[in-house]
Structure formats: C-alpha cells, structure tokens
C-alpha cells in the first residue's frame, strides 16, 4: 500500500467506530443515485460527489446514500430517488451538483418535495 497509511488508518478506525456508516443502519431518508451507463455518462458521479461533500460539510449523519442501475429513463439522467420516512419514493431528474444539495436539505432532511426538479408530480388530466 502507499505511504499515507496504516498508522493513520488505525486512528481513522477509532473515529469511524463512533460515527455512522453511510450505507447501513437507520436513517430518516435514503437517497439512491442511479448509476447506469446513461447516468454515469451524464454526470451521476458528480452528483454523488456533491451530495457526499454537502453531507460532510454539514455533518449530516441520518441520510443513507446508495446507488442503483439504469431505471429506463436514460434521457432524464442524472436521476436520484429519495425515500423520506414512510412516504412514497420520489424520482428527481436532470440533476447537477447544486440541485442535489437543495434536494438533500429540503426533501431528505425536512420532508418537503422539491417539485421543480421532480420527474412528475400529480396525475394526468382528461382533455
């Protein structure tokens, strides 16, 4: 392994034992970043990076982050799905680093859906 290593990793291990895992345990919300070829090509990794950075900067510990494959809506990527508490999942489309931070703060933390970024809100109207 490289130079930056084992002694430091041991210190980190002790810190990590006291903090929450990004992937496991209970959280009040879960954000799933879609990471198929289409998502990756249109910026999913940058969205994920921005999300994790924002969580770090704000010390947010109770939002779980995970990834999934293509959802079949490639032209709407990058997309994420947010599940807040026991409410229905919401898909957000055409995201970037700024939009995902707003979704984190408003939906995942406060439970308020960010309607302008949601893929669809409401139902069809009869003409």
């Amino acid at each position, binding site marked *: 392994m490289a130079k930056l290593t084992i002694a430091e990793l041991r210190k980190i291990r002790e810190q990590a034992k006291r903090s929450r895992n990004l992937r496991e345990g209970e959280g009040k919300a879960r954000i799933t970043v879609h990471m198929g070829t*289409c998502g990756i090509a249109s910026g999913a990794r940058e969205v994920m990076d921005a999300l994790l950075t924002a969580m770090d900067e704000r010390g947010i510990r109770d939002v779980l982050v995970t990834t999934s494959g293509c959802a079949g809506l490639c032209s709407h990527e990058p997309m994420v799905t947010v599940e807040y508490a026991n409410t229905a999942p919401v898909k957000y489309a055409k995201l970037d680093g700024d939009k995902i931070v707003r979704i984190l703060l408003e939906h995942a933390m406060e439970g308020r859906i960010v309607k302008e970024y949601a893929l669809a809100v409401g139902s069809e109207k009869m003409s």
Partner: protein
Amino acid sequence: MKELALHILDIVENSIRAGSSFVQIAVIENPAEDQLIITISDDGCGMDAKMLEQAIDPFFTTKDVRSVGMGLSLFRQAAERAGGNMRVVSQPGSGTRVEASFKHSHIDRQPLGDMASTITMILLANPRIDLVYRHCLADDEFVFDTRAIRSVLDGVSVTSREVIQFISRMIKERQNLD
C-alpha cells in the same frame, strides 16, 4: 464519457451485476512505448460464447428496462478512437476480463480522470466486494487493496465516512504525484 475513470466505473458496475465479489482494476501507463492499458477482471458469472459476442453489440442488453446496452461498446469505441482496441475474455463460471489498449499520446485519448471518485463510488455502492486497483506509470507502481484496508479496520466498514475519505485522499495523493 469524459474520462476513462467513468468507463471503468461503468464496466465495474457490470461486474457487480454479474455477481462478482472480487474485482481487479489495472491501469498500466507506459509512455516509453506510447501505450496505456486498462484491464478490469472479475469473478462474476461470466458469459458463454454467444453472450460474449452479443455483449459488445450496443443493441444487446441483459436488462429489461430498455433495449440498448452501451457500456462495453462505448469503451471499445473510446479505445479504437485513440489508436487501440478492446477485447473481452470470459467463460461461464470463470469471470470476465475486459482489456482495452490506447495510444498514450493520442490526441483523442481521454484523460484517466478522477480514479479516487470512481473507486470510492464503487465501494459505497457495493460495500461487500473486494477491490484491487493497480496503477503503474513506467516503473512506478501504486496498489490499493481493500483486503489490506479491511485487515486494519477491525470490523469497521469500508463505507464509514472517515474510511471513504481516507481512501479518496490516498488515491488522490497518488494521482497528484503523476
């Protein structure tokens, strides 16, 4: 894809969906011979000859949410555009190995890009897999191995925030040396 690291992320996602528990990524840069080789090997379910032939066809996919599968064909196109090629070796039950070569100095070769981000995304999405990332530049070799990390962690997950940050710094430190 803007960078080779994104292709690597995408190909490894295929490995994960093929049930892999151990994935090896090698990036071998040899400027003296004007060559860059990327190899991704996994221990997933593998493919038979027919499926292997279909795998690089952009209009073939194993998924049912859509009818196209672009990952391998995009990677092959990236290699061919930069004076190289791509081949896939696989057998049912014996995993799959994807190897792409590029002319190192080719103007159309994408940059390697942010491997720290690619590796940490793979781990966050798949906390239980083991991953070896080897980057060689001429005679200089860097190896990142989750098995070595886990042996120190004493049960702490590799996806703990502090560990992910450590891994990211470690790989970025390497890239800055290049």
